[in-house]
């Protein structure tokens, strides 16, 4: 499904070179639930960026579904992300001027799907995350856990092959964290969606089939 081969990534910050990823080799199989764990600044978010096509590595290959995305153009990466990838963010990143259902639908607006089809898919996704009754509510009217469930619905509405999550429970209380992680596990089981979740929390690790531990830019 996803294979990283000799991936390296450096950043320049305040004149210093930071080696965020050093010789990363990683294979993630289809349907796997992977937890990438490590302390702050260990390179786990950079790895997520590179694996998902949000950022390009300085060297090495990232084979995503048989295609090397390490040298792909921006438009191609956008298309891959829309068709094959779902994202969940720590801060939920819902658009505040859109209702829950509109936020979920937003992923499909720039597609050729008809409005009715988009609405049906969004309703199905919201039902999957038990948020259908809140479909007309705005993000400001929802709790953190509810926002993250709507964000999860947006991530799965396009029927992606992979869902990437960056500290998905970072802003949630333990109970909401449990709800969201169990939903992710359920979606992983029901639809065989590959899950790649970055976290620094030990409590999240138990949900993964595979734990990738990182430190100082390397997999340890």
């Amino acid at each position, binding site marked *: 499904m996803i294979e990283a081969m000799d991936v390296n990534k450096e950043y320049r910050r305040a004149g210093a070179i930071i080696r965020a990823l050093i010789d990363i080799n990683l294979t993630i199989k289809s349907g796997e639930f992977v937890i990438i764990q490590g302390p702050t600044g260990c390179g786990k*978010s950079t790895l*997520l*960026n590179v694996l998902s096509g*949000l950022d390009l590595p300085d060297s090495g290959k990232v084979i995503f579904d048989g295609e090397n995305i390490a040298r792909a153009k*921006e438009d191609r990466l*956008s298309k891959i992300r*829309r068709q094959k*990838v779902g994202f969940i*963010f720590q801060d939920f990143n819902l658009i505040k001027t859109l209702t829950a259902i509109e936020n979920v639908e937003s992923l499909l*607006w720039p597609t050729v799907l008809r409005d009715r089809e988009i609405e049906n898919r969004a309703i199905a996704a919201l039902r999957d995350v038990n948020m259908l009754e809140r479909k007309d509510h705005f993000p400001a009217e929802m709790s953190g856990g509810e926002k993250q469930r709507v964000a999860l619905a947006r991530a799965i509405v396009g029927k992606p092959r992979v869902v990437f999550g960056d500290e998905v429970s970072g802003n949630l209380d333990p109970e909401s964290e449990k709800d969201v992680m169990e939903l992710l596990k359920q979606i992983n089981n029901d639809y065989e969606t590959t899950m790649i979740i970055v976290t620094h929390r030990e409590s999240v690790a138990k949900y993964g089939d595979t734990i990738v531990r990182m430190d100082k830019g390397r997999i340890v």
Partner: protein
Amino acid sequence: MAFRLWKKAIIMTLRERKMFVVFTGIYTILIFLTSFFIETTLSGGGGGLATYFIVIFFITSLILSLLYAWILVARNRRTWATLKAIGWTNGNINSLVTGIILYTTLMGFIIVIEVLFHYAAIMTYLQSVKLLTGYPIILISLLPVVLTFAIFLFVQIIAIFVANRKVLKVRPMLALKRVGE
């Protein structure tokens, strides 16, 4: 697809109530005043002063339109980054931004046309019943309004160009940064 994004742009614009009301209000006043001074110039009144005011309103509308475009993109950088992360292309986001900018201006025009109709009707009535005598009445005809529309459209095209350039610079990775980081 672009049509759908423009429809969504209208919804999003209307829900950003404060910004929409402020900028539509300012545009309405500017459009009205520009039309008024174009009418004055065309009818031979006002001398060079009317032309001077037209230039001032043109420059003001240009500055305001650029400011609106800048605020629109800068305030919503995280939204654009998120949309890029979930698979929207730069072109998709630009369609949305273009829709928001054009809709705000268009609403200003619709309000001006509405106001001008009522203004003309009231003035004509007051004149006919001889309640308004001894005052010069300036009715703005269609041509100055059309000319003003062309000027404002030109200004908006510049603003859209600037907004689109700014949207291009937003990196999808920004969506992963924590709020305030």
